[in-house]
Every structure is written in C-alpha cells, then in structure tokens.
C-alpha cells in the first residue's frame, strides 16, 4: 500500500530522495506508534541498568577524590576552594554591612554595631542620582519609585541583602567575562577551547552545578554568589568577544600605527571602543544575576530569593507573591538603569571650565545626603529605616484575587486544561515514548546530515548516544515532549503577535514593552501564578514555559519583518500584491531565517525553564536534576544536566544550520 501511494505521489510531482525518505519515515513512525511496542526487545526502549555506562558513578567518585584527596603539594584542592570563598567573602560581607546589617565590632551575640547601614533615604537618593546622571528626571523618578515601593511594601531589608550580593557578583562576572574574552580575542586557540565550554555552560541547567559548588565552597552566601557568577559569566564572555571583534579594523590599524604596545592597544583602544557593546553585556550580567536570586537561595543566599523559596515551601502564596514582585521591581529598576548607562556611553562635551561642585553635582549632593542621614538617623529612627507603621501589604489581597478567580472560573480553566492535555500533549508524549530509541536517533541523524553535513551528523549521533548510554533516554523524551509542545504553542501565539506588531506601529510599541517586561522577570516568578491557577502537573509546566519562552519568538519575528530591505517590499507592491500576498509571498519567506533564530532562542529558554518547572511535578530530566540537588548527588545531577545541555546543543546546531541554509537560498549574506 505504501508503495502504491508512493507511486501516486511520484506521478504528481517528482520527489527528490530526501523528501521521499521523510515520507517513508512518516509511515514507519505511524506504524511503530500503532504496533511497535511488541516488535522490539525491551532494551530498545530502556537500556537495562547493567549495560548502562555508569557515568554518574565516575563523576561522583571524581568529586569525592577532588574534595577528599586532591592536593597540589602545599595545599589540598579543598583548601584552595575554601580559600577562594574566604577571599570572596571579604567584599561580600562589606557590601552586606553597607546595605543591610551595618558594620559590627565583635562576634555573634556580643556584636556591637559601630556604624549603621546606609539609610533607606540615602540609598534612594543614590539611585535617583544615578538615574538622572544616566538619562533624565523621568528615569530618576521611575527608579526612585521602584525603590520606594520596596520600602513601602516591607521588602526593604531582604531587597538590600539581595542588592548587596548583586553589587559584588556583577563586577566579578563582568571582569571575569571580559578577561576570558580578551584571552579569546588574542589567541584563536584559546577561543576554540572555551567556545564549547561556553556552549555547555549556557545550556546546562544551573541546578546541575549547584551540588558540586556546594561540595567545594560550602553552604552560604558566598557559594551562592559563586554559582551566580558562573551562571552570568558565559553570556558576558560571548558579548565581550563579539564587541571586541566588532571594533572596526581601521581603529585597530590606527592603534598599531600610533605605536601602541599590546597592552595599550587592548586597554586604551580596543576596550574603550567596544564599550557600548560591553555595556550590553553588563546589563545581561545584572539580569542573569537577578534571575539566579531564587535558585541561589537554595544553597544559602538570603534576601528576596530566600523569602520566595521559603514561602513556596510553606505554600504561603501571598508571601511568595510579595517577595516575587519585590524581585521583579528590583530587576526592572536595575535593568532600566543599566540600559540607560549603556546608551549613555556616547558622551557629550561639557562647556568651558566648571568648578568641582558644578562638574560633579550628583556625587557631592549624594555624599551630603548619606552623611546627613547617617547623623540624623542616630536620633530619628524613621530616617535610618522606613517606619514599619507606614508599610503596606499586598500579599493577602493578591492571594484573595487568585482565590476569587479559582472559584469563579474553575470550570472554564479546567476545560481548557483538559482539552489541551487530551488532544495535544498526551498524544505527542505517547508518540515519543513509543518509538524505539534507535529509530528516533536515526531520524535525527538523517536530519542533521541534510542540514549540516557530516560534522553535524557525528555530533548529533554522539550526543544522543550519550543520553541512551547513561539511561536517560526515557526522561529525555519527556523533556523533548514538554519542550516541543511548549515551543510549538509559544510559536503559534508568538509569531502571529510578532507579525501584527511589525505591521502596526502602535501595537508594536505596546508589544515591545510587554516582551521587555516578560524578559526582565526571573524565571521562578512565572511559576507562582501558574501553580495557583492550574495546580501542579505537565499543563502548569507548559504554561509557565510558554510564558517564559514566548518573548524571543515575538521579538525575532518583528525584527525579521522590519529588516526586510524596503526595495523588495516596494517591488512586491508595484507588481500588484495584495496585503495578504505581500505577507505570505514576500515578507514571511524573507523573514524566515530571522524567525528561525527566534525559534532557536525560544527552545533554549524553554529548556532552561523546564528544569525549574520540575518544582511543579514534571517527570523529565529537570526532575532528575532537582532530585539530585535535594540528595546532593553530584553525578546524577550532572549527567541529567548534561543530557539537557546536549538536547539544547543538538537543537541549536540544527536550527542554526537550517537558518544558514535559508539565508543562502535567499541570497542574504
């Protein structure tokens, strides 16, 4: 029957061998779905434990050796890592004292405060000053408002603990990333070495390396900060490499012709010329550090993250929401501020010769306010810390709102949920789980070959065999299913929104603000309302992932459509296209490579969010990582984490190859 159908289709239009292959593959897949389970031995679905490669054990053993025995002659590895954390503790405790606890004399309960922390008035004055310096009064007011919110809604103390850790983590992340980037810029060999490591670090879920960090650096704010730095550094490194390479070659030539030494060329010519790009990296580091706030509290960070986590554990939705909103407010404030600084890096000249007060108006007035509030704060407590009697609470009213929705819309929400689960999510899950792994890998590898040739084929084969050999296949398929379903829904919603926003300027502006805000929110925050509305399970996970991952699908679609050369659109209009034809026959095909890149980003974000949704009860690799974290099982966590990273890398490489092909075909460089 298959053969006759094949012939019929062959009659209609000549098929090349690739299309033919996929047609046959489709039939085989349907057949396997219907009949497959009985035809193959069990090990084709799940590799039995005794033939798995015990990578978990190797890693755990290595970790034990590292912690217990490794030494460099004069000191052990553990002493080294504890030394590093001791060193990092110095700036961190300074910042914590400055923002939160005040400077103490003595230990424990006998400690005496010799200097109070910065008063809330001083901190707000400082951020307002920075806002005005970076852009204008509007931004200053906005940022001041955000911080005032934190004070008024009782989040001040936790927010300052969080701010202290970010103030220290960000410079380390930025400088570390910049130094790595300089190394990569100078030595192509070094770049080749770190590039796959960066790939891995950006795709492996944070949970997976929390455990080793715990072993090496202990539990506490310092370990949490190290995890944050490790998490935030790879994107900074990448952006810094790109910015350094983006410095026009003429400027590099000029530096050489002026007789710069290597060091002068780097620090006086390249780095300052790349500053606007580097500031984008700084913004990224700040946002990623905030994103880590809740996760880092699992290994000992205090502050807002800890509040959210402990509220979630107590099922105190109101409290969790309050602290969550606190993080969001802090994130938005710091995001806008650092973006304004990034935009400001194109300087404007100052007139004439000003005296020192006029030259540095802000520095001097903020210093005055800090001193004044310090002295006055000793006499008037309300100046030192925001008076508790004036604090407001929104937690209860928010919780009530959710309860009200749940009571009144329960049936409607439940119907949607059941419909999507039964007709979409469950069938996809079953198809993936019913395929023997060899067949799935075969299809993957053929696709890889067609898109990217031999190299991509080999990469795909090796990475997917790792997942099989370590016994992660079944869980990996659940991850693929959840990720795939979420990405499809995110694209189905996101791409049309992107198209509409690109066609209509007013809508475009609204959408832009929306996705900017969505991307500022730490991933954890999405879980809270979703769980409240849909309770735990795959559907909640899917909704949270869609919300978190939809932004790039929209952003890249807008970007792709808006950046089509206008001559091509004019050509379409003059040849008499209707609006619909213009969209389908001109704009979308030309925007396709860009949309594919958006799809790629969406997948990456979806995978990173999936690990966090393990908290709402999925059964995938994310759950495996999370269990490993709670059991402090290094090997188990890393292997599952690597599997997620490998899925991400395969998807990334295949889509990138596809986008490249599409671009070539369209003659866009």
């Amino acid at each position, binding site marked *: 029957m298959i053969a006759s159908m094949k012939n019929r289709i062959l009659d209609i239009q000549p098929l090349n061998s690739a299309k033919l292959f996929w047609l046959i593959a489709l039939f085989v897949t349907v057949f396997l779905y219907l009949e497959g389970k009985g035809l193959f031995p069990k090990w084709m679905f799940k590799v039995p434990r005794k033939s798995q490669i015990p990578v978990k054990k190797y890693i755990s053993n290595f970790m034990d050796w590292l912690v217990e025995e490794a030494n460099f002659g004069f000191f052990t590895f553990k002493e080294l890592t504890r030394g590093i954390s001791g060193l990092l503790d110095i700036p961190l405790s300074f910042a914590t004292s400055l923002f939160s606890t005040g400077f103490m004399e003595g230990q424990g309960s006998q400690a005496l405060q010799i200097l109070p922390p910065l008063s809330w008035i001083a901190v707000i004055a400082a951020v307002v000053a920075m806002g005005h310096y970076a852009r204008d009064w509007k931004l200053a007011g906005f940022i001041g408002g955000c911080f005032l919110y934190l004070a008024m809604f009782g989040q001040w103390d936790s927010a300052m603990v969080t701010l202290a850790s970010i103030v220290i983590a960000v410079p380390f992340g930025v400088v570390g990333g910049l130094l790595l980037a300089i190394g990569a810029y100078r030595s192509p060999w070094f770049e080749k070495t770190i590039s796959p490591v960066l790939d891995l670090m950006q795709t492996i879920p944070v949970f997976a390396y929390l455990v080793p960090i715990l072993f090496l650096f202990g539990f506490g704010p310092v370990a949490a900060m190290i995890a944050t730095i490790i998490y935030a550094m790879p994107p900074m490194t990448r952006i810094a490499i790109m910015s350094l390479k983006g410095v*026009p070659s003429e400027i590099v030539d000029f530096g050489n012709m002026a*007789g710069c030494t290597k060091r002068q060329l780097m620090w006086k010519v390249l780095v*300052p010329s790349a500053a606007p790009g580097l500031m984008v990296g700084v913004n990224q580091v700040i946002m990623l550090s905030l994103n880590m706030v809740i996760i880092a509290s699992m290994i000992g960070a205090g502050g807002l993250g800890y509040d959210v986590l402990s509220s979630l554990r107590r099922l105190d939705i109101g409290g969790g929401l309050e602290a969550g909103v606190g993080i969001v407010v802090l994130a938005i404030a710091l995001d806008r501020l650092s973006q304004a600084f990034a935009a400001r*890096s194109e300087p404007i000249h100052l007139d004439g010769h000003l005296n020192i007060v006029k030259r540095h108006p802000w520095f001097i007035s903020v210093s005055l306010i800090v001193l004044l509030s310090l002295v006055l704060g000793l006499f008037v407590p309300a100046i030192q810390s925001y008076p508790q009697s004036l604090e407001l609470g929104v937690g209860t009213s928010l919780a009530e709102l959710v309860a009200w929705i749940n009571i009144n819309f329960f049936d409607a929400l439940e119907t949607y949920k059941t419909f999507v689960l039964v007709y979409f999510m469950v069938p996809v899950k079953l198809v993936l789980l019913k395929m023997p792994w060899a067949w799935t890998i075969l299809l993957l590898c053929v696709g890889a070959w067609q898109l990217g040739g031999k190299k991509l084929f080999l990469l795909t084969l090796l990475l997917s065999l790792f997942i099989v050999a370590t016994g992660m296949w079944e869980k990996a398929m659940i991850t693929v299913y959840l990720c795939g379903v979420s990405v499809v829904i995110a694209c189905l919603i996101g791409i049309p929104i992107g198209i509409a926003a690109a066609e209509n300027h007013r809508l475009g502006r609204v959408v832009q603000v929306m996705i900017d805000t969505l991307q500022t929110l730490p991933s954890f925050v999405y879980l809270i309302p979703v769980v409240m509305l849909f309770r735990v399970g795959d559907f909640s996970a899917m909704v949270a992932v869609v919300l978190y991952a939809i932004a790039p699908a929209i952003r890249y679609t807008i970007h792709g459509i808006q950046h089509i050369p206008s001559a091509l659109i004019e050509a379409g209009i003059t040849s008499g296209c209707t609006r619909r034809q213009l969209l389908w026959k001109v704009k979308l095909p030309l925007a396709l490579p860009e949309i594919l890149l958006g799809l790629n980003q969406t997948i990456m974000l979806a995978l990173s969010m999936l690990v966090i949704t393990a908290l709402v009860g999925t059964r995938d690799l994310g759950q495996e990582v999370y269990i490993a974290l709670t059991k402090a099982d290094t090997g188990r966590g890393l292997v599952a984490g690597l599997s997620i990273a490998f899925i991400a890398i395969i998807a990334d490489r295949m889509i990138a190859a596809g986008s490249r092909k599409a671009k070539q075909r369209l003659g866009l460089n």
Partner: protein
Amino acid sequence: MNSSVKLSCRGVWKIFGPDAKNFLAKHNHKPKSRDLKAANLVGGARDVNIDIHSGEIFVIMGLSGSGKSTLVRCLSRLIEPTDGEILFDGEDLLKASDEEMIEIRRHKMGMVFQHFALLPHLTVLRNVAFPLEIQGVSREKREKVAREIIELVGLSGRENYYPRELSGGQQQRVGIARSLAVEPEIWFLDEPFSALDPLIRREMQDEFIRLQNVLKKTIVFITHDFDEAIRLADRIAIMKDGKVIQIGTPEDLVMNPATDYVAEFTQHIPRAKVLTAGLLKDDFDASIATAGSVFQDTVIADIADDIEQADKPFAVISAEGTPVGLLSRKRVMDVLVGREVSL
C-alpha cells in the same frame, strides 16, 4: 625637490591563503596569475617595486580590490608581506623587531584612515594627543602640541567635542591632526576623502594642498579617484589585481598610458589640465618678440585665456626666472581642441 629615496619596496608580495610562503618558493618567487588561481590563493600585492622620494606626494591609484590598501598596509607593516623588502631610510622594516617597529611608528610614521578611525570615547583634544599620550609625553606638553595642530587644521574651539558631534569633514580634520601630532617623516593617507561628500572632498583637497605647502612631508596617498590623483600627485602608481602597471607623473600617464587599462582612466581627463607649459614649449629664441612670460610648471588650462588673446608667443621661464623656451598660440590651441600634439 630633494630626490633621495625615503621609502622603497623591492619585490613585495602579499599572498592571502594558507602556506603562501612555500607557494612562492615553489614558483621561484614569480608565480603567474593562473598559478595563484590553481592554488586557490589571492594575490593582494604582486611583485611591487616602488621608490618614494623625500618630500613628494606619491599617489597609489586603483579601483576596489586592486590591492592598494593591502600595499599601503605592507608599507607600514600593518600587514606582514609574504616576500620582499621594505626599505625605510635604507633599513629593511621587515627585519625590525616588534619593539623597533613600535618606536618607528611612534616617531616616524603617521596614518589617516578612510573612515577616520577616531576613538569614540575621547574628545578632539585627547584624540589628537593620543599618539603622544601612549609615548608617555606629559599631559601639559602633549595638549600644547595638540592645540597647535588643531589650530593648523582649522578646528579651534572644538577641542572638547566628541567625534560623533562633528561632521564627516571635521572628523577627518581631527584624523589628519592626530596623524601629524608626532611630526612623522612619512605620512600615509588611506583614501582620506573617499567617505566625504563631493563638495567637502574638494574643500579638503585644497586644505591638503595648503597643508603640504607648509609641511613638505613625504606622502603616500591612496585613492580610487583618478581626478583626485591627478590633482594632488607628484607621481602616480596605477594598480590592478595587485600589480603596479605604471608609475609616472600625471603628464606621463595622460600622454603615454602604458596599457589600455591606464588609457581608460586618462582618456576623459582634459589634457589642458595636465600638460604644462614646460612640456609644450619650443626652443627659446631671443630674437622673437614675446607677449609675456609663464612659469614652466603651469598647466595649460590656467594660462589658455591669456595666450589665446595674444598674437605673439609667450616666454616660458623656470622657477628662477630664466627663459627656457617659447609657447606658441598654435600649440595651446592644439591641446585645447584635442589635436595630436608632438612633444
């Protein structure tokens, strides 16, 4: 003009692609175009031999991809040539160590770039002072020097502006000022006016001629614009596919193009703008009455009106004022209407 050779390149090759050095050795240092093509290599500069004299404006002219930018970067060793010698005051630059090269560039070379290459984070003053800053010259001294040069290029009052606050022409004035800050012995200009509007370009060319009259530098000037080359050059080298196909004065090129390719550039150039009185003169004869005198290096276009209206020939005199020949009305008319002229 002092005609000692300042910068000279001998058999310079720059081949882009893997294993270029072995490739050259294998082909006895004289590979043909088809050899390059067969090996999938690109010849950026191919067997270039030029001498640049002290105090002259030497223009390297070629279309995009002709290798002129590669060549000027070989001359300053921004690109390492694959083969050959670059002699600067008789010393081979290619044998200089990194430290020596830094010293040479700090004190003897200046370069102006097509897209200005100003540092975006520094003011005009600090941009111009930058080459001195990295030499460790004191702030007071380098800013004094910078202010003088800024005045020379006509940007006084803009010292505290940042590059992006200036127009293209002004930015290039900063670029020129900066390259002059170290009082270089040799001045490279890589298409300095190509990124400017035509009107500004003309103005900057005049400015450049004015500056050179004051400074008398040895100049290597790169351009893709033949009119610009004719206007500015003492001598021109025409490049194509990495090779220098002809070197000569503007007159030489217009009157005796070596190949059809050169002729294509020169044919639309009005000869009256290139040919000089000295070139067209007949032998001097003191017995013939003259209507006046013209300097021998004046181009015909500038004196055509006077000569046309006079019924007697003009005396052609040298820069010192001694008569060296006679210029008849007929000869000038021949040039103006485009008849063959015998030289």
